[in-house]
Structure formats: C-alpha cells, structure tokens
C-alpha cells in the first residue's frame, strides 16, 4: 500500500500570534513550529495502515527550507521518504496544484492530510486535490479502515457522523480519533537522518489570491467577577449589559 501524507509546518498551538513588516508577515520570532495536529493524525493512521498491510509512506510538504526539521520528525514517526516542494505555500490553490502534481507521478492508493491547517484553517485543499485528480475526497474523516481495494470511512457531520464505503484511491482530510498521535522513538529519530528528503521545485506558480495585510482582534476587556451567591447579578448583566439573552 502506497500512501502519500501531506503535512503542514505550522506554529505550535500555544504560540502567541504576532505580525511584522507593517503587518504583512507572520512574526516567527520565538515561535516553535510543529507538524499540523490534524496532519499528525493522518500520519499516525498511515503508519498503522502500513503496519497492517505493508507498503510505503511518502510525506509531502509545500514549504521553504525551514520546514525540514518538521519533515524529519514525520520521517522519525514512520514515513519512509519525503518530498518538499520548495516554495512558500501562498494559497490553497497553489498548494493543491503542487500536491496534485506529485500525486499524479506517485500512483498512491491513499492521499491523506489533516482536515485543515491550523494557521489558515481553510480546510479546502483535500477537495481541491480530489477534483484535480478526479478522485473522491472526504473530510473530516474520523475513522479509516482499509480492506483490499476498499475502505470504510467514518465522516463527522454536524451533530453526528456517517459511515461510508468507498474504493481506493481517494483523498481524505483526517481528524481525531482516527489514530493516536505517535511520538518518535530513538530508533526512528536515528533512521530519519538518512531517509531520503527530496527537494523539488514547484510545478506551477499560479495563485488565486494574495494577502495584503494581517490584523489582530481588539484586546479583550477585563473579566467582571460575580459572587457565587448572587447569580441573579449575572442574569441581569447578560440581559441588560451584554443583551445576549
């Protein structure tokens, strides 16, 4: 089984978000970068599927050279080889085109990624890649079982979930509880250093959008504390100050 796992290189979930250069660039100063948490679920499930069925896992990142430590971590977790498309991931259309170009060459049985990146939260790339490849796409996928050329998927819907049956290949945007995140062990970390990480140039430079500036939301005012013995004061505030009830 040949699996492509697309990963993002994103600020840790606890990062303070700030911008520089007249609010046109993300401020990377002091920010720890990680594999996107949803992508990490996709990777963990790919490792489990490989353990069950054999095969090969390729991780793919569209990013600049500072993504390499994140990609090495994915190799340490259990991917066999990596491809980095050497470009800033400027918009979802650009990224989807790069993924589709790589996927067309690789003959993958499954193309997995997170349901969304945690920087832009668009959640659109899986559908775009599916359309470009003429393959079905599913998201958010909570469970994925593969039996031969078929798969059983559980997809989250609003207020519940649905179970699907589909044949391979397809594209899936993954989320918990598809698998438990895996922590690389020492053997994984050692072997990751020598696994291939191929850097390729973008197949196409077209984009559909451009960001002109970033903004931070207005600062939150101080919390108003209410005595636990006086809950009617809270009701009054919600009704007459916030006007939300």
């Amino acid at each position, binding site marked *: 089984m040949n699996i492509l796992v697309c990963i993002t290189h994103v600020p840790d979930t606890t990062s303070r978000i700030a911008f520089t250069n007249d609010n046109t660039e993300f401020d990377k100063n002091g920010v720890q970068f990680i594999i996107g948490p949803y992508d990490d679920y996709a990777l963990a499930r790919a490792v489990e599927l490989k353990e069950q069925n054999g095969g090969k896992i390729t991780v793919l990142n569209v990013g600049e050279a500072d993504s390499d430590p994140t990609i090495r971590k994915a190799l340490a977790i259990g991917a066999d080889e990596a491809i980095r498309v050497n470009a800033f991931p400027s918009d979802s259309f650009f990224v989807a085109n790069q993924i589709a170009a790589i996927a067309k060459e690789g003959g993958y049985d499954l193309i997995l990624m997170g349901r969304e990146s945690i920087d832009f*939260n668009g959640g659109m790339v899986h*559908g775009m890649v599916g*359309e470009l490849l003429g393959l079905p796409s599913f998201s958010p996928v909570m469970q994925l079982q593969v039996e031969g050329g078929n798969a059983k998927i559980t997809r989250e*819907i*609003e207020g519940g*979930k649905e179970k699907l049956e589909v044949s391979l290949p397809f594209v899936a945007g993954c989320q918990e509880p598809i698998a438990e995140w895996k922590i690389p062990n020492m053997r994984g970390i050692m072997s990751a250093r020598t696994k291939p990480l191929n850097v390729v140039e973008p197949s196409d430079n077209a984009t559909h959008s451009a960001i002109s500036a970033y903004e931070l939301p207005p600062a939150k005012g101080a*919390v108003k504390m209410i005595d636990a013995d006086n809950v009617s004061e809270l009701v009054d505030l919600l009704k007459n100050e916030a006007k*939300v009830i």
Partner: protein
Amino acid sequence: MSVLVFIETEDGKIKKSSREAISYGAALGDVTALALGTVNADELATAGQNGASKVLHVADERLNAGLIQPYAAAIAAAASEAGADVIVTAKSSLADAVVGRVSMKLGASLVSNVVSLPDTSNGFQVKRSIYTGKAFANVNMTTDKKVLAIKKNAVEIKEDGGAASVEAFSVSLDDSLFGTKITSTEKAEGDVLLPEADIVVSGGRGLKGPENWGIIEDLAKTLGAATGCSKPVSDMDWRPHHEHVGQTGVKVSPTLYVAVGISGAIQHLAGVNSSKYIVVINKDEEAPFFKAADYGIVGDAFEVLPKLNEALKAAQ
C-alpha cells in the same frame, strides 16, 4: 453582481447559517439560491426573506444525503445557470468538503472563514479569520469568479425580503459521481446544532463524570443552547466527539459561550475565541479561562448551575 448561494437544510428547514449566507449574498447583488434534494417548496420560498430573488431546486432524491462529488457538480452547474460571479456558502462540515472541488471546476478563487463583506474599491478584498480566531487576514481574490465560505454567526440575518420564486433545476449527474455508499448515519435528534448555536453551554472535567451532565443540559435547555465539552471529556467518552469544542474539535462563534468546570487550556480557547461573550464558572479562581472571560463566577458547578438555571427561568 450575480450571486449564487448554496443553502443547506436540517430537518426540512433552511439552516440558520445558510440564511446568513443568503443575507451576505444579498448585500453583494442579485441572489439565486440553490437547494439540493427533497425540500418543501414553501420552505425554500422563505429564502426570499433573507434576500434571495430566486431558488433553484434540484429535487433529485439521490441528493438527499450530502454526497461530496455530486454536490460539487450540482453547485458548479447552478453557478453557470445563474451566471454567478460569486458563489457564497456558509462554512460547514459539508460545505468544507465540497467547495474546494467547486472552486477547481469553476477556476475560481476560494476563501474560507470570511467575516466581512468584500471591499471592492480596488479589486475584491475580504477579511478572513486565521490562526483559529487569533488573527485576521485581508485577502485579495484575483480571479474573475470567486467562492466564499462565510464563518458562522459573522453575518446579521436580513429578514425584510419577500418570497423567492422556486424553480425546478435539473442537473445531469453521472452515476460515476455516486460511487460512495453511505451505510449509516447517526445524528443527535432534536438538539440545537453546536456549530449553528447562538448560545453554547460547555462542560469540562470539573463535572466529574458523564452522569452529572444533567445540570449542563438543564441550563442549555433554559437558554435554548447547544451543549459542548472540552477535549478530555470527549477523549474519555463522557460526551460524543461532535460536541468537542477546541483547536482539534468544533470551533464555535456564538453570541454567548458558558464554560463550566473547564480550566481554559489554550487549545480549548482556540475553539471559542470568536464568541461574543464568554461566561466562566469554575471553582478554581486561578483557572486561566477567567482571563479570556467577560463574566466569571468562582464556585462549585453543582451549586451554582441549579441556582443560575432558576434565576434564568425567573427572568424569562
């Protein structure tokens, strides 16, 4: 500007977030709405209240379930039929899965999590939420056609319109698009949908066990709210995953979020920071959630919640 709005229904009713999307579209130009599958025509005509002049209805029974590929094909066909420059949808579990495909079919730029009307003074620029609500980006969409997925509760619903005309619209959908088989669907019945809710009441580990959720549900019922929970609560199976609010769960943007017995880990805050007002009830006065709250009560949930519920009922 000609606008196509894809609308979703729930229990035969147009979803609130779809009415928001229609209202958004009506501020841009002439709105044609699109409904897929079996829906009552009288209900569809009410899209006019929100500003749609016309509703295209594809009454194909195969579309009663939300199937991603046929939905994308039908939306793209309707966009051509309506001559739409802009396609608008509410951001939802289904729309997220579908609109990427639609944008590729139309060669259209796609922006999700849109929170403002476009600035068209110089091109077409929209503001979108990024970093899980911690920031915004102003994005220039550089193609002729555009697809916008609107963040929930970001748009005021317009209700002063009349009735829309409902027209049957037929799309030829190849059988090959129906290769996916839905074998079962589980859905909570009769509850307020969490991502759609105006008010959310969430419980955390402070509730001590799933058997204690009655006080959360009682408060939610009084407020007409949806119930949510923190990640540990969903991980321990006290509550179903679709109620998990946070970075890797549902991101909500209600007018009021009430957090009970939730300490306020940054991953949870990421799911709620678009809420207009936040009430935190926690017995630990050091709980970090208080810093993100508008109103706070330090106290035992088992004592505070029943009292609060009574006070709310009395005020109604």
